[in-house]
């Protein structure tokens, strides 16, 4: 045998194996996307870009939104929210159908199963970071300088990765058994989009809606703090440590539930493959 037998795959640590496979699957996702679509990179930013322009037109040009929470330039504000939302949204949508889409691979290779979700989180996360170039262009075009709070950006990435990984782990096995869930998720995501501080600042939330204390309900959303971290790069007033604490706790709880659900349901999932 050749020198290639030096390290048998099985002799590496589980962590190294996990990382190795995760990277391979992520690279596969990205290269499939970029070899089959001539406009690969453009596609990953086209959706948030287009939506930003639409919302800008509707709220700024038509409705004369005003600058109540100091979120100008609004187009930049929209981009800063819609780009991470795209990561969130596409990861969960993809996780919901991962077992039906990758059935052949799941049946033929024995890998740690959380990889099927983790690789979506990572490849979509990479696309998100790559899409930030567009944000930079808009910042330049509107001549908006970043603040030192931009240094917190990696914390936002980390929290969001934990959150979407946890949600993906919940959604992926359940959709195998309940096909309707895939549609339900799309609806829930749409509601969540408007309930999260993507289009507006959380400072604009009213404290009560009639007798309902709406503000605490909305603040319980772990995305709020994450959006705040991202936004603080240009709008320092958006950095709210209470929100961030809620995000951190919420994300970890979701991850815990996700790991539990995934672990318990995976034997049944494999039988359905």
């Amino acid at each position, binding site marked *: *045998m*050749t*020198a*290639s*037998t030096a*390290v*048998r*795959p*099985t002799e*590496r640590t589980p962590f190294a*194996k996990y990382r*190795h*496979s995760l990277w*391979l*699957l992520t690279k*596969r996702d990205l*290269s*499939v996307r970029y*070899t*089959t679509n001539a406009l690969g990179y453009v596609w990953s930013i086209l959706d948030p870009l287009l939506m930003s322009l639409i919302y800008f037109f509707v709220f700024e040009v038509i409705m004369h939104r005003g600058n109540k929470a100091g979120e100008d330039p609004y187009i930049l504000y929209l981009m800063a929210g819609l780009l991470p939302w795209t990561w969130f949204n596409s990861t969960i949508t993809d996780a919901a159908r991962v077992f039906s889409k990758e059935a*052949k*691979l*799941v*049946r*033929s*290779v*024995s*890998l740690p199963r959380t990889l099927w979700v983790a690789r979506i989180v990572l490849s979509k996360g990479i696309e998100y970071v790559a899409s930030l170039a567009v944000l930079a262009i808009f910042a330049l075009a509107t001549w908006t300088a970043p603040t030192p709070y931009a240094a917190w950006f990696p914390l936002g990435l980390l929290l969001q990765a934990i959150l979407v990984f946890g949600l993906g782990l919940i959604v992926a096995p*359940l959709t195998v*058994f309940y096909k309707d869930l895939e549609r339900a998720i799309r609806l829930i995501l749409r509601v969540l989009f408007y309930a999260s501080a993507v289009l507006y600042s959380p400072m604009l939330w009213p404290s009560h809606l009639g007798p309902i204390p709406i503000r605490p309900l909305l603040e319980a959303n772990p995305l709020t703090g994450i959006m705040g971290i991202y936004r603080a790069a240009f709008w320092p007033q958006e950095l709210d440590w209470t929100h961030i604490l809620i995000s951190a706790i919420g994300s970890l709880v979701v991850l815990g539930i996700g790991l539990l*659900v995934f672990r*318990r*349901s*995976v*034997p*049944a999932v*494999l*039988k359905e*493959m």
Partner: protein
Amino acid sequence: MVAIDQTQTTRSGGADAVISVSGLGIRFKRNKRARRTFKDLFASRQRRTRPGEFWALRNVSFDIRQGEAIGVVGRNGQGKSTLLKMIAGVLIPDEGSVTVRQGVAPLIEITGGFVDDLTVRDNVYLTAGLHGMTKRQIDAKFDEIVEFAEIPGFLDTPYKHLSSGMKVRIAFSVITQLDEPILIVDEVLAVGDKAFREKCYERIEQMLANGRTMFFVSHSERDLKRFCARGLYLKAGELVMDGPIDDVIDRYNDDYGMNTLPPVEGDAA
């Protein structure tokens, strides 16, 4: 990608056993559309069988030592492939345990990891990588893999443009180059033209001669006798016989011989 050791008890089956299976059981729903509740989903691993379920395998125990070639015999739907999948780690048992102590090269749905839109070259790196090889190891083996598959000149062709024979050849070539000490084979050899099939057989024989352990499922008496020394006979989800392959095949033929009608017992899985 080994050690599927999911369960509580791992009875160490002899010092040199590379695969230990003890008290293995798995059940499936008879009716896919049977009502399923959330409770169902999470309350796994209960011993009792719920209505509408059946045990595809139960109380199966055996040990395989290094270098053994085991053939699994049984009619369709008696749990052969299910057993194989649990050893390969792509199915998780409901009771008992499977312990695999060395790396596995699974020849199960061998084209499963291949992506239509990527080139053959990318696919080789992807599949071999997912089975645990590093990039350097694949680099070193790459020419050998391609040469065995007999598809020079197609390396940068998208996988989907290969003929089905070529697809199987490259997949077989990749998996058998994994250099893992255990080989699991699930009737994949039925594909490909005659010349290539013979080449595959030679490759397997050569691997066995190098001390590989093999777990082999086949309906072909000839292939079983050619490769295996020991046989396992599965019937209705139970291991009814474990012995020399010739005896196992004789017993199987007695059960379903030419002159007797096949009994109807045991539902199809």
